[in-house]
C-alpha cells in the first residue's frame, strides 16, 4: 500500500512537471516583454507563483535565444556584468500565437470539465 502511495505521488509529480513545462515557456516569453536579467526574471516568476530553478531557466533561455525568440546582451549594472534578455520581434509574434492556443486549450478544458460535472 505504501508503495502504491509512493508510486502515485511520483506519477503526480511527473504529470505536474509535464504540465508546467509548456506553461513555463509561455510565462518566460510573457515576462520578457520587458527586459530583465536571469535572476530578476526568476524572482518575478517566483513572485507570481512559478518557481523555477537555475538549472531549468538558463538552458531554456539559451534554447529560446537559439530559436530566435529572445535577444540577449551582456551589460554592466551596479558594477556587475549581467546578461539582459528581451523578446525579439519573432518571439513577440510566437507569444501572441501561443497565447491564442493557450486560450483555446483553456476554453476546451473548461468545457470538458463542465460537461463532466453535469
Amino acid at each position, binding site marked *: 500500500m505504501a508503495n502504491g502511495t509512493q508510486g502515485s505521488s511520483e506519477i503526480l509529480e511527473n504529470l505536474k512537471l509535464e504540465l508546467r513545462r509548456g506553461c513555463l515557456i509561455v510565462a518566460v516569453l510573457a515576462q520578457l516583454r520587458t527586459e530583465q*536579467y*536571469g*535572476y*530578476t526574471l*526568476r*524572482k518575478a516568476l517566483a513572485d507570481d507563483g512559478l518557481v523555477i*530553478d*537555475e*538549472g*531549468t531557466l*538558463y*538552458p531554456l533561455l*539559451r534554447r529560446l535565444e537559439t530559436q530566435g525568440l529572445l535577444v540577449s546582451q*551582456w551589460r554592466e549594472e551596479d558594477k*556587475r*556584468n*549581467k*546578461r539582459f534578455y528581451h523578446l525579439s520581434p519573432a518571439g513577440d509574434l510566437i507569444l501572441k500565437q501561443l497565447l491564442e492556443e493557450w486560450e483555446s486549450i483553456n476554453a476546451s478544458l473548461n468545457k470538458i470539465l463542465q460537461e463532466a460535472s453535469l
Partner: protein
Amino acid sequence: MNPSSPDSSTQNAADLIDRYLQAVRFWLPKSHRQDDLIAELGEDLRSQIEDKETELGHGFDKTEMAAILKRCGSPMMVAGRLGPQRHLIGPALFPIYEFVLKMVLLWILVPVFVFILGPVNLANNGGNWALAVANTFGDLWSGLFIAAGIITLVFAIIERTNTHLGTEIKWDPLKLPPVQKDKRKPSLLKALCEFGFNIFGLVWLLLVPTYPFLILGPAAAFLKAAPLLHTFYIPFVLLSVVALIRSAVTLARPQWTWFPLLSQLLHSVLMLILLRYMIQAITHAPSAFPFVVLQDAVRDSAKYIKIAAIVNVSILISVAGAWLGLSIAAIVQTWEFLRYLRNRTSSPRQIAPIGAQ
C-alpha cells in the same frame, strides 16, 4: 588581517562561490559556451546572496553561503541541468536500435554459436562435451559483447549525423500487417488433428514389432531391428503415450492456455534426452549396423550387406537431424513459453479492439 573579522568572513564566502563555480565548470562540456554559462550562474548566485543579505541586514558568512550553495545542488548535478541534453541514442532511433540488437544477438549470434560453433568446438575438443560447452559459451559471451558494442557505436554515429531520421522514415498505413489473432488458444480442428495423429502414431508403433514392413517396407524381407532399437522401443512407446495424453488434455481443457506450450516443451526435452542416450549408445558400442541388421538367411550376401549399411547411415543421419531440429524447437518453445508468462504477468487484461465494445 584577523581571520575571524567580518571582512575576512565575507571574503571566504566569495571564495566559496568561485570554488563552487569552478567545480560546476569542471563538469560542463568544454564546447557548451562554458564561460557564458558560468558567468550567468555566478551572477545569479551573487544576486541571490545580495538579496538575502539586504533582507537580513548583515553579510553572509561561510556557513550561510554553504547553505545557499547546498540548496542549489551539487556541482555535478547543476552542470548536468545546465549542459545540453545528452544521450547516445535518441528516442527516435531507440526502437530500431532495440530491434536490431535483439535480432542480431538473439536470433543470429546465439543460434550460430550454439549450432555451428558448438559442434566445431566439440570436434576440436575430441568429443569432450563439458569443454565444448564451456568454450562455446565463453566465445558466445565475448561475441555478444563485441556485437552489442558495434551496433551501439553504429547507431550512435547515425544519431550524431542524422538526428531527423525518425521523422523521415516513409511508411504506408495500408501496408501495415493484419491484426494477429490470439495464437495461445488452440483451434478445435488443430487439437482434433493432433489427437488423431497421435492415436495413429501409437497404433503404428505398437504394430511395428509384429509387422516390421510398416517401418522397413519391402526391406523387411532381409532386414530386422538391431538390439539397440529393442532397448529404445519401450521409451519411444511411452513418449507416444505421453503425446497422446497431452493432445487429449489440450482437447478437453482448451481454457488451460499454458498447457499446450508447457507440455510441448517438456515433450521436446524428453525426446531430446532419449535421442541423446541413443546417440551415446551408438558412440559407446560402435557397430557398422547399429539400427538394423540382416536376417539370418541373407547374412553373408554382399549385396544385402551394402543395402543394410546404407539404411543404417540413413537412420543415423535422420536421428542426428531430429536431434538438431528438436534442439531448435525446444529453444523456440522455451522462448514462446517465457513470452507467454511475461504477457500474462504484464497485461492481465486483453485489450478489446476498437468498436468491439
